[in-house]
C-alpha cells in the first residue's frame, strides 16, 4: 500500500498527515474503527465512502475538532489530540456545510476569514488578489455571496480556507451540488495546489472525483478497506474479468446473469449489462448461456474495471469476512 504516483513526483517522501489505529466511538456506535494511513506532502489523498462510512469523523479528528477515542494522529508534525491549537494555524478546512456568509460580499468574506488567521495589511491584499484570480471573481468583489452561482461559492470557500497558505487542506465533500463544469474547474485548482506542494485530503462519494486523486482510501462502516493508487486498486481484477454485454431485454437478462455460477456480480447500466467474472474464459460461457435463454444476439467485451467495481468488490469481501 504505497503511493507510487506520489512517490514518483516527490522523491523525498515527507509524511504530513498520519493516522495510526485512529478510533472514534459515539456510545456503542463505532464511527471510525482503527484506521491507519500516511499522506505525503503534495499528495491528493482521497477518502472514498458512502454516507456514514466515517469520512467526516476522520477529518474532524485530524482537524482537531473531535478527540479520538483511541489511536494517534499527527498533522504537519503536531499531535491531533494534544496540539489542536497549533494544527489549526497550519490547516485549511472546508466543511461539508457551506462555510461562507451569504449575507456578506466576496470581499467581506475574504477579509473576515483572513482576519481569523491574522492575515492583514499587505499580506492580506496579496492573498485576496490571489483568491480573486483563482476564483475568477475579480469583477464581482462587491457581490453578495448569496447571489453567486454554486461553483463560484465553492471556489471562494476553498480560497477562504487557503488565505493563510496552510501546508495541508482538508476538504469534506467539497463539490456537492455543483454542476460538472464547475466541478472540473474546482479540481483543476486542486491539481494546481498539489503541484505547489500543498497536501490535499479530500473526502468524496463520487467515483469521478476519486479518479483524480493520487491515492484513494476506501472506507466502509468505519473501517479502511483498501488504500492505494487507482491503477493498483483496479488491479484486484485480473485482465478480462470485467465484461460489458449487449443483448436483447437487458432488464431481464441481468437476473439470468446473476444466476450463472461464473458470474460474481452483475448490474444493469442503461441498456447494457456489466458483469464481473472469475476468469476471462467465462466470457464465452456467458454468451452461450444468454443466447440459449433467448436473449440473443449477445456481444461480450472485456472492459477496464471502474473504481465503483473495485469499491463494491471490497465491500462484498469485507461483508463476507464479517459473516463467516
Amino acid at each position: 500500500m504505497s503511493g507510487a504516483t506520489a512517490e514518483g513526483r516527490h522523491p523525498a517522501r515527507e509524511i504530513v498527515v498520519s493516522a495510526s489505529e485512529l478510533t472514534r466511538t459515539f456510545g456503542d456506535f463505532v464511527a471510525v474503527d482503527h484506521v491507519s494511513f500516511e499522506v505525503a506532502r503534495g499528495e491528493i489523498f482521497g477518502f472514498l465512502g458512502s454516507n456514514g462510512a466515517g469520512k467526516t469523523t476522520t477529518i474532524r479528528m485530524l482537524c482537531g475538532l473531535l478527540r479520538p477515542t483511541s489511536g494517534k494522529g499527527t498533522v504537519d508534525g503536531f499531535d491531533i489530540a494534544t496540539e489542536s491549537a497549533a494544527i489549526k494555524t497550519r490547516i485549511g478546512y472546508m466543511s461539508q456545510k457551506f462555510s461562507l456568509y451569504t449575507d456578506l460580499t466576496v470581499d467581506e468574506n475574504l477579509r473576515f476569514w483572513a482576519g481569523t488567521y491574522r492575515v492583514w495589511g499587505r499580506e492580506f491584499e496579496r492573498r485576496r488578489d490571489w483568491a480573486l484570480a483563482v476564483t475568477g471573481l475579480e469583477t464581482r468583489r462587491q457581490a453578495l455571496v448569496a447571489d453567486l452561482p454554486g461553483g463560484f461559492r465553492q471556489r471562494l470557500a476553498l480560497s477562504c480556507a487557503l488565505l493563510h497558505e496552510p501546508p495541508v487542506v482538508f476538504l469534506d465533500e467539497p463539490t456537492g451540488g455543483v454542476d460538472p463544469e464547475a466541478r472540473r474547474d474546482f479540481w483543476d485548482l486542486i491539481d494546481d495546489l498539489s503541484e505547489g506542494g500543498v497536501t490535499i485530503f479530500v473526502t468524496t462519494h463520487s467515483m469521478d472525483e476519486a479518479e483524480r486523486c493520487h491515492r484513494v482510501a476506501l472506507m466502509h462502516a468505519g473501517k479502511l478497506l483498501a488504500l492505494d493508487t487507482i491503477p493498483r486498486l483496479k488491479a484486484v481484477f485480473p485482465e478480462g474479468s470485467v465484461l460489458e454485454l449487449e443483448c436483447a431485454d437487458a432488464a431481464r437478462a441481468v437476473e439470468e446473469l446473476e444466476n450463472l455460477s461464473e458470474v460474481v456480480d452483475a448490474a444493469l447500466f442503461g441498456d447494457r449489462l456489466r458483469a464481473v467474472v472469475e476468469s476471462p474464459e467465462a466470457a464465452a460461457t456467458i454468451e452461450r448461456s444468454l443466447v440459449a435463454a433467448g436473449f440473443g444476439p449477445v456481444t461480450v467485451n472485456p472492459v477496464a474495471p471502474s473504481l465503483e467495481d473495485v469499491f463494491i468488490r471490497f465491500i462484498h469481501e469485507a461483508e463476507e469476512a464479517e459473516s463467516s
Partner: protein
Amino acid sequence: MIRRVLAVAIKELLQLKRDWRTAIALLGMPLVLLMIYGYALSFDVTDIRLGVVDLSRTSASRRVVEAFLESGFFVRAATLDEVRPTDALFASEAIQAALVIPADFASEAAALRPTSLLFILDGADSQTASTILSYARQIVAATTPEVLGIEFRSPLEAAPLVWYNPDLKSSIFLVPGLLAFILMVSSVIATALAVVREKERGTMESLRATPIRAIELLLGKTLPYLLVGSVSAAGALFLAWALFEMPVRGSIFWLAVVTLLFLAGGLGWGIFISTLAESQQVAFQLGLLSSMLPTLLLSGFIFPISSMPRALQIISSIVPARYFIAALRSIVLKGVGPDMWWQQAAALAIFGALVLLAATVRMVRSL
C-alpha cells in the same frame, strides 16, 4: 487578539447592516416598548366610579359627597336611595366604590358623637382597592373639621415631607424599572441568537477549524451589540425624561457607566444562552423567558424585594436588574454619587464578568 475581535465585530456589524429589519427592531424596540408600557403601566387610580347612597340628605352629607367628587379621583356613577342595590352595580362593575351616609349622620355629627360613613369597596383588585381606600381616608380626614364646624388639632401629628417624588407619582418610581426591564430583554435577545445562528448556518464548524479563540469570538460578537444597545438605551433614557418626566438629578456620566455595565451583563447572558441552545428558536424563547420573568418579578421593579419571602429575596440577588434599578433610582431620582451605589455597580460588573466567563467556558468546550 484585538485583530481577531475586530474581524468578528466588523463582520457582525456588516451582517446587522444587511439585516436592516433586525437592526431597526434592536434600535427601536426599547423606545416603542417604553412608550407602550410607560403609558399603560401606572399605579395611579383616577376616575373611580362612585355610587352615592345619601340617606342623610343634609347639607353636611352633601358637603361630604362634594368633597369626594371635587378631589378629582372620583366620579359619580350612580345615585341610590338604599344600600341593597349597590350589590348589582358592583357585580356589573358599574361602580368601584360606594359611599353610604347614614340617616342620622348630620344629627350625630352636630352632637359631636362618634359617627361613621360606610365605604364599600370592590376588593377583587386589591391593589386598586387599597389605593381607593387611602384616597377616601384622606378626603374624609380633610373634610371632617368643615363638616363638624370646628377646628381641632390632634396632639400628635405626622407631618409628611416627601422627598424625590413629592407628588408620589407612580411613574417616577416605575420608569427606572421599566427601563431596566426593556434594556434587559432587548440586550439578551440581541446576542441570544449570535452564536446559535452560526451553528444553524454551518459556519460554526468552519470557525472552529480556525485558530480563533473562544474569548475573541465572544467579545467580537458582544461589542457591536453593546454599541447598538448604548444607542437605544440613550434613546430610551431620553424618552423617559421627555415623556414621563423622569428627572435626571445625578451625573449623566455615572448614568452611562451604570447603564453600560447593565447592558454588558444582559448581552453576556444572551451570549451564554446562545452557546447552550441548538436552534435560534430555542435561544429566542430561553432569552425572552430568562430575561423577562426575573426582571419583572424579582427586581423590585413592581414588587418590593423587602416584602418578598426570604427564599425569593435570595434568588433576587442574582437578578442584575435589581442592582440596576436601585442604582438608577439613586442616580436619577436622588442625584447621589457613586459612594451611595457603588455596591450595585460592583454587583453589575461581577454579573457581567461571570456570565461572560461562563459563556467562554461553554464556548471553549464546543470550539
